[in-house]
């Protein structure tokens, strides 16, 4: 992963920063420069809370390069309470305990492995809310 790219992606990957359209109010994740709903370019940064619901999940045993050292891992679609759907790994839970409809929250974790000279890539994963309190 190139450092400049990683730096640019940090607001969305680490803070779950998206956009809110000043014109039509639609929320998008990650950040956009133009609203795909109303074509306005008047967008402001929008901080998502990081709370959501797990819609569907799978346990991955054969992963793409960069993720092989994490298998088996759970990958799923999370609907944020604000609306957008996020594809993310589900962490801090045994794969067989994962249940659709589960409330989850965003945490920052190491996302993928890279070469010895590359920066470590951090970003969002989601964990069950019950594990937190």
């Amino acid at each position, binding site marked *: 992963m190139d450092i400049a790219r990683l730096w640019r992606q940090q607001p969305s990957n680490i803070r779950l920063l998206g956009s809110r359209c000043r014109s039509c109010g639609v929320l998008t994740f990650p950040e956009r420069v133009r609203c795909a709903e109303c074509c306005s370019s008047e967008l402001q940064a929008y901080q998502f809370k990081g709370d959501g619901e797990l819609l569907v999940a799978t*346990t991955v045993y054969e992963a793409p390069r960069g993720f092989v050292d*994490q298998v088996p891992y759970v*990958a799923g679609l999370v609907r944020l309470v604000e609306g957008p759907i996020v594809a993310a790994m589900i962490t801090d839970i045994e794969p067989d305990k994962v249940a659709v409809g589960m409330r989850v929250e965003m945490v920052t974790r190491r996302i993928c492995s890279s070469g010895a000279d590359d920066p470590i890539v951090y970003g969002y994963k989601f964990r069950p809310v019950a594990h937190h309190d």
Partner: protein
Amino acid sequence: MDLAHLVGIGRTKAGEHWNRGLVDLAVEAGGAALDEAAVSPTAIVVGNALGSVLGDQRNLAVYIAARLGYRQAETHTVESDEASGGAALRMALALLNAGFHEAVLVIGAEKPTDTFPDGVEAGRANGLDVLREAGFGFGVSVAAALAMTNYINTYGVDRSSFYHISAHAHRHAALNDLSFMSWALSEEQYAKSPLVADPFKVCDGAPPCDGAAAAVVTLKRPETDQTVRVIGSAGISIEPGIWRPVLELKLPAAQQSASRALDQAGLTTKAISLFELHDSSTIMGALSLEAIGLADKGQALKLAEGDALSLKGAHPAWTFGGHKARGHTLGASGMYQIVEAALQLRGDAGQNQVADARTALVQSLGSFGSTAFTHVLSR
């Protein structure tokens, strides 16, 4: 309306070509198509998905043209993920119908087997959203596993019934010498194949492999009787994201492009003799059958279990084994489908022949169904 005539076709075996590179494969298939055609194309369009990503040649068409003996030609290299083959054909139709050329050579070529499977999976994943999906451990198998999970939960089908899609494809591939997996798939083999991402097993996926397929297309009707016409063509991309096929179990781009191509051809699905759809996985095959209206929602697996999709059935599909068993040559697969459909319409399909095949619908998808190209062929 005739958009083009297919006047020459060629293809290599789909499989592991250890002694052939990407350009060599393309030249082999392209050369065969040129040998069959009585005209000399002045433009070459090459569809390829992963050449750049896996470290092969960029601006591929230039090097293929030179190796085919061209001293000059207009060349284009087209990349639309796994729909690259369909996109390349459509580009060729545009060049013909704009009046820029009288004959165009279209080649689909792919060479993934030099790379280890996790590297191929990562390359394929980059056809998904790199920022939101591929960068977070989601590949096409993961997406397919999520869609299967939701399909099972929504329609109450048995997990094991996805076997019927694979078994069907293997039955046809067993008759096709140029297929990668030319054997019948037993229920036990399917059940015992390892999990890639629960519930997606190895035997739910179309195996990525090497190969090239090509056609010469012209605007002018050839002198011979042996012509296959392209009478419908449509390309559509919708808002990308795996969430729609996964959560809604729909492929709107596939549905709309099929509908437009059929409208242009003046045909309905009922009038189509055979179907070559994008079965990159059992679930994509199932959703494709539903998108074009061959099966009602949730009924595709049942359709595959019966005889309807067989060579003698009401709606023959994946007549040479589809991506699942002929082998998934990724960016070349769309051109394999075209060549296979052309063989059917010429009556040259051998053991895979659909009796009295008159029309074919060919559909190529990319980015997990976000991009679709559909062509309707007629004899």
